[in-house]
């Protein structure tokens, strides 16, 4: 064998040797054959500083795109406000962005926003109020003062108030012919019970009674420098953020004596029982559940609550009701906010499928103690929820709004990191223990059906959950 041939053989051997993995690489046909590598999720830490008047500012620096997201947030807890003030709050939320700001008339705000092509919203609800803007870095000088003014001096224009009232009324009236919204609204009423503001059916008179002065007074009550938190994300460094925010907010002081006194909390009085709200719809909509007064999002087990929310709802109830051809989207929810929680199932099906749908929901929930979520289901829930966290991190507005929301709603500056860690640490035992506490309709749930089930009220009576009350329809927004 000459040298040339030897080299060639070595080369061929190497080709074969290296090609073997490729030839042998019959692609797997099942995921079990794959092992995923480690995945590290880093929760960004913002820079922060405090302005002389006490307003805190957080900066998430990111220079990939020439964009800046701005948010100004403050706690706006309206749940326990007296009824008249709750109506003022809802109207305020509708009017906030539309009603002008500082020296800008409503029309001038609209014109400026259109001219700058910026995203500009104001929202109130979920325990907080927020004014958010997303704009090109080059438009900051023109856009940021508008954002500041909508936070510090919204005008709540009188003419736009009329429009906001009409639109709010239309929102409520829209409930009347939407079976899903009817079910949601009635279920919330039944969970809260008579004597609570959640029981009240909003009328035209309620909304027409809201005055501009009441809205202004309410807003000023929330607007405290120690409560406001500013967030900046995007193409800006710390020095620039400091300079700009100090110029925009640094010399602001609130009017004296306008702080809102704390409202007295009320308790829910759930109306356990079976209820039928008759309606001429092609589907029956169902809700079944109970309040969880002791569960809040501040619970140390909150990541477990989120895992159970998805794990039971999707992995068990949703998949089973899909597989049985009963429903397009029936599930359960385990939810909590800053005050309380609830566990409930909801969905819709054809009139002759209602009892099967209810049986499926109840059986899946009842089976949880004997058959808790397994490792695969926990992985599925964890993956989905980690994805939600990453989803928030992906955009400037998503990141800054979420992180500041954690602050103003009392979840804490490190809430996102704790959630990520909690999701990753959860195991079968901890979830089974949490499920035993929360995943249960209890002996006396609230069960509501909207529509015309086959067999009518008698069919529901056979469920063994007590007598059926046929509800008298109420009109929302009339």
């Amino acid at each position, binding site marked *: 064998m000459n040298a040339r041939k030897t080299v060639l053989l070595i080369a061929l051997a190497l080709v074969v040797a290296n*090609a073997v993995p490729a030839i042998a*690489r019959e692609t797997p046909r099942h995921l079990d054959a794959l092992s*995923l590598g480690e995945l590290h999720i880093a929760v960004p830490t913002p820079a922060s500083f405090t302005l002389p008047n006490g307003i805190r500012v957080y900066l998430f620096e990111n220079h990939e795109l020439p964009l800046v997201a701005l948010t100004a947030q403050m706690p706006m807890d309206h749940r326990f406000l007296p009824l008249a003030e709750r109506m003022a709050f809802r109207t305020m939320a509708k009017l906030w962005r539309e009603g002008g700001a500082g020296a800008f008339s409503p029309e001038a705000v609209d014109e400026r926003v259109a001219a700058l092509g910026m995203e500009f919203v104001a929202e109130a609800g979920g325990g907080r109020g927020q004014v958010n803007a997303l*704009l090109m870095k080059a438009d900051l000088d023109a856009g940021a003062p508008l954002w500041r003014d909508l936070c510090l001096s919204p005008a709540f224009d009188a003419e736009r108030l009329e429009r906001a009232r009409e639109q709010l009324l239309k929102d409520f009236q829209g409930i009347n012919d939407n079976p*899903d919204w009817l079910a949601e609204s009635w279920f919330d009423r039944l969970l809260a019970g008579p004597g609570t503001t959640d029981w009240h059916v909003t009328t035209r008179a309620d909304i027409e009674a809201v005055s501009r002065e009441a809205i202004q007074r309410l807003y000023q009550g929330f607007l405290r420098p120690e409560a406001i938190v500013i967030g900046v994300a995007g193409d800006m460094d710390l020095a620039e953020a400091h300079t700009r925010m100090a110029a925009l907010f640094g010399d602001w002081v609130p009017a004296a004596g306008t702080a809102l006194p704390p409202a007295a909390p009320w308790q829910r009085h759930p109306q356990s029982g079976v209820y039928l709200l008759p309606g001429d719809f092609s589907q029956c909509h169902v809700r079944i559940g109970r309040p969880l007064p002791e569960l809040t999002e501040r619970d140390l087990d909150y990541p477990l609550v989120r895992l159970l929310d998805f794990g039971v709802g999707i992995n068990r109830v949703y998949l089973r009701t899909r597989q049985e051809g009963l429903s397009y989207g029936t599930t359960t929810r385990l939810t909590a906010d800053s005050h309380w929680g609830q566990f409930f199932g909801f969905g819709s099906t054809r009139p002759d499928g209602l009892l099967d749908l209810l049986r499926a929901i109840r059986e899946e929930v009842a089976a949880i103690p004997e058959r808790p979520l397994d490792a695969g289901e926990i992985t599925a829930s964890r*993956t989905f929820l980690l994805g939600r966290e*990453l989803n928030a991190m992906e955009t400037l507005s998503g990141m800054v709004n979420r992180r500041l929301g954690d602050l103003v709603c009392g979840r804490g500056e490190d809430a996102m990191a704790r959630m990520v860690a909690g999701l990753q640490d959860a195991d079968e035992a901890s979830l089974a223990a949490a499920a035993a506490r929360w995943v249960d309709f209890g002996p006396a749930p609230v069960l509501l059906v909207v529509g015309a089930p086959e067999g009518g009220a008698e069919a529901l009576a056979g469920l063994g959950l007590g007598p059926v009350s046929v509800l008298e329809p109420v009109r929302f927004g009339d």
Partner: protein
Amino acid sequence: MCKPCLQRTPLLGLSALMLLPALLGADCAQRSQGPPPAGAPPLFAAVEEVRLDNGMLFLLLPRHDVPSIAARILVKAGNVDNPPGDSGLAHMFEHLAFKGTDVMGALDAAAEAAVLDSIAATGDALRQALKAAVVDSARVAILAAEIAALEARAAAYADAMAFFQLYDRFAYDYNARTGEDFTIYEATVPANALEAWMLIESERLQHTVFREFYAELEVVKEERRMRLSDSPEGMAWERMQTLAFGDHPYRNPTIGFAEDLAALSPNLARAFSATYYVPGNMVAALVGDFDPAVARRLIDDYFGDMPPGPAPPTIPMHVAPPVAQQRDLLHQGEERELLMAFPGFAPDSPQVPVARMLAELLSRDATARLNRRLDLEAGVARDIGVYADGGLERAPGMFVIAIDIMSGHSNEEAEALVWAELQRLREELVPATKLAEIAAAERKGFVFGLQRNDGIADRLVRAQAGLGDWRQIYGSVAAYATVTPEAVRSLAQVLFVPERATVVYLEPEAPDAGEGGGE
């Protein structure tokens, strides 16, 4: 994997030989990284095309901000491709594509296949019975009972939820959407799960088993009841679409007419997938935290073996415009809504940017003409939507105006105000400054959208499928700047002609109308 590549692999130096497995994969496909789209933001310069020998195109855009990857597979098959009388088929197939494969979910594949064949044969008979001029209800009931029994038998041989459960375990999020023109399979997966996505999607595209067809058909019927039958707005839109498109398949609702859904069959779905789910009819995009070299190899491994298949049939491109104004009235629910449609333009028509500009002028924001006139000034309406193409991307669509009427006002009042505004556009020149403002806002909005990987992936596949080249991704945005006041007026004169309009009123249900509710 693509075995013919081995024969084309050149002899390389020793160091390169060590990389051979990766190179083998990369060499199987045509890879290119041409010039970025003109005027587009710089990040598009990094888009890489990978065209497999079987015709399937992948667009790759690495971004490393968060450890996730947005993935899309667009199949150029939607409602418009359904055979006549089989509306809802494309959407039904999309549902079936989550039922697993001969590996995923199969407990006894051979036994299951035999029962599924029986179901398909009985399904053909059921379809025939339902499509007969006179429907024999007794025979339909017998066949339906046979199918139910067969599906119960088949269930013993498979776990039809396994595919969902497998996908759940590695994907942050996944879904599919069937539209008029396309079906898009979408997922967001962790950065360490790229191969898992490749595996599951290649399995789905090549080895779908049509499990639980009739049980899933019931789910689709529930979806229709939820989205349409109990939604007055949905039913009004269906009426408008049916009326505006005459004989064109765009007339059909994507979810299908109730009577068409009842007669769908497994063999029909099989034929549909064989026709349209071929590699040359698909485009995929990956945007996010991945290594392009690894992605190229995996693409070749998992998708390179798909047989190319013949090109699917084309769709009718001609939509006959109405010769006289068409009107319809629907009494359902308690709300009022006004829908107006005018014949639209083919996606490659030079009129498209002008039509889009018209839509923006009418309803972009609070300064737009319909918003100002009908909402802020007259208080007649809210939620005003104007769509230049009605969401249609392959054939001429429709220019749609949709208006939610406020309590105490009428459809007639709103329609009169709309026509007055349309007449202004026909007569007066729009200020050039307003057009420039909208063009600038569109460019900015495009940049806002670049924050999200899934948004970019969506745009890439849609531009490739709808416009023939992903590099047009920025073209439609840039085209706003070319629209002149004269062009806007000229198009308004052609477009907003009463005789070419289709008008639908949604009115509250009359006490004895008896039209509300179910199917």
